[in-house]
């Protein structure tokens, strides 16, 4: 086999495998992508019943109802709209009223979101940290920090 043939075999094989990979990915993208929506998106986009989505927001305080057979119902809110969610199973550790939650599932015909997976952030340190970072950079954290922290603490008191 000459050098040229060898190179052609290599390149041909490479392109072949790559083509398979691309075909697999396109196929998978068609079937397994799940869009993330907030309750407001749900209202605005008129998501069809049966389409799998991820619904994210805060668990609205006071709406968590635990029924029999580990059925749970609660509302997810983003401040402007709410969506009712039903779920059966054990809720994750960090699931709490007033905290962030992501539910995966689909709407039934009545506007109830049937979740089969509930995710509460298990890496909760990251989110607040970024907010804090943004603040840190906009403020003067080096020396001004103590004053800033003291401001709410030592604010008008009596």
């Amino acid at each position, binding site marked *: *086999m000459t*050098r040229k043939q*060898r190179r052609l*075999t*290599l390149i041909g*094989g*490479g392109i072949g*495998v*790559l083509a*398979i*990979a691309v075909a*697999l*990915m396109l*196929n*998978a*993208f068609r*079937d*397994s*992508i*799940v*869009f*993330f*929506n907030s309750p407001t998106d749900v209202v605005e986009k008129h998501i069809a019943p049966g389409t799998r989505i*991820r619904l*994210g927001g805060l668990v609205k305080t006071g709406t968590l109802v*635990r029924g029999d*057979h*580990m059925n749970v119902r609660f509302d997810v809110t983003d401040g402007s709209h709410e969506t009712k969610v039903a779920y059966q*199973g*054990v*809720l*994750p*550790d*960090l699931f*709490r009223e007033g905290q962030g939650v992501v539910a*995966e599932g689909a709407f039934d015909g009545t506007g109830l979101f049937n979740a089969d997976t509930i995710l509460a952030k*298990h*890496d*909760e*340190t*990251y989110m607040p*940290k*970024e907010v*804090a*970072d*943004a603040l840190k*950079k*906009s403020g003067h*954290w*080096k*020396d001004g*920090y*103590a004053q800033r*922290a*003291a401001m709410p603490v030592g604010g008008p008191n009596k």
Partner: protein
Amino acid sequence: MIAELGHYALMLALGLSLIQSVMPIVGTRNNDAVLMSMAVPTALAQFAFVAISFLALATCYVTSDFSVLNVYENSNSAMPLLYRLTSVWGNHEGSMMLWVSILTLFGALVAVFGVNLPIKLKANALAVQAWIAAAFELFILATSNPFLRIANAPFEGRDLNPVLQDPGLAFHPPFLYLGYVGFSIVFSLAIAALLEGRIDAAWARFARPWVLGAWMCLTLGIAGGSYWAYYELGWGGFWFWDPVENASLMPWLAGTALLHSAVVMEKRGALKVWTILLAIVAFSLSLIGTFLVRSGVLTSVHAFANDPTRGIFILAILVCFIGGALALYAWRAPLLKQGGLFAPISREGALVFNNLFLTSACATVFVGTLYPLALEALTGDKISVGPPFFNLTFGPLFLPLLVAMPFGPLLGWKRGDLLAAAQRLLAAAVLAALAIAGGFALQHGGPVLAPFGVGLAIFIMAGALVDLAERTMFLRIPPAAMMRRAIGLPRSAWGAAFAHFGIGVTLMGIVAVTAWGSERIAALKPGGTIDIAHFRLTFDGTFVRPGPNYSDLVGRFTVFRAGGELLGAMEPSRRTFPARNMATTEAALMTRRLNQVYLSLGDPNPDGSVPVRLYFKPLVLMIWLGAVIMFIGGALSLSDRRLRIGAPRPAKAAALQVPAE
């Protein structure tokens, strides 16, 4: 004062890294050995100062010095010593310090142990390593400084996140970082070789120990992270295709490909261009994995558009290093001479096959991980690419690789005989067929593919043994001669067989858990029983067990075999931290040989019943056992004396070893 010493040491390290990044290169350009030799003491001094800096930060954490902002934000004096120490790298600034510490550690290791490297290669590589170090030291000082102070130190630190207080986190991030950053040396060696414009078969041997070391640490780091998620998150999954996990898997795949292509380069001088590219890609993926995916820089650039300094800085570093390296590669690679010829069916061909599939699989993970980030940054649409995507893409690409794996080592160099290799694998194939048949006979109602998965795993494990048997002429020559051959066999051959065997072990565990694992969810009242697999659990009731700053609501279960034999007790709990209104699940595990019973509790229901999740995880320990075997294989390979050849000093030792073998 200790914090200030650390701060200043970091600045000195930055200065040293600037000198180290220029002088050795000027030396190689002018063939001046003195300037080249500056690389060694500067690399050592740089490491010393970064180490001082890191130790200073760690001291501040251990002594709970809340006048350091970073300590105040991420620690608390009430935590046990271990967690005060691990919280050093439990946050962005501290983990950057760990990253740079390991980076300079590797520079120092090359300076000390790289005695077999040609002096020009070594000088250039250390200079490139210093570019990376300088960029990140500057990044730390400018945007992520852990040594900022608070004038009036608060009484107590803020953050005490119970989820992160776990011994697992003491061990697994450092190993992951050792893996990620280990590839930096291989990257530096590749860039150094491109700068010099001369890349020979010998380069692969110089780079190989560093690739192996990084790969071993990464393997262990990934396995450790997987086990932590398994027992700590309370729902028994071992792999979630989470971006954080994918970030570590991508460099591992590229590193594995590199490990194999370097063999071809070393033996045959072929695939040089490709190997150098893989060396660049492996570290680039480490960088992308750590900084784009893990730190959420891409999304944070999007979210905090008013002040995205940190994100822009990181992006600039990534663009410089990855883009610069690829540009240099594109410029220099066409100048490289071609290596030896080989037929498609040969050891080389098998390794090319391995590389094609590994890199394609890596590419699918890359797309699946970064596509959501890119889409969100560009359009604001949030999508999730979950396990189904990866199962549909990664799975089919990995399958041919696994099937072909036992054949590779049995093929000859240059021109192999597939038929002969297949004949040698006959025993393994028969074992696999028996396993498939047995699987079908024993399985009731499991997935159809499961017995085939087990068969494949058996085939891989038996294939690795066949490879060893062939090389030692097992049962064909007298045992004494066989032992001599076994000892004479290069350690890297042993290493390869071990690593391949480990893959089979891990595959076996994954197949068994996915196909035959079972799950029960039920609400139990005291006295209730629940059955799973061949176990019966009786719920005896709950009691409260107070801890230092939490209280455990413990559920006590007695475990019986279906026949009635008492096996022991399991005590999963819900750990609540009253003042923080936080609860974590502490799952209970019962290990029976390689199987585990996994039990976790939910929040008690109003009617007094307690929801429990019960899993039977058959052969689950094999998943991580396989990774440990792979690590051992890597260690065997690393101990191969050939990797140390080329050093001028041990020449005498090498001469002594030859007759001994």
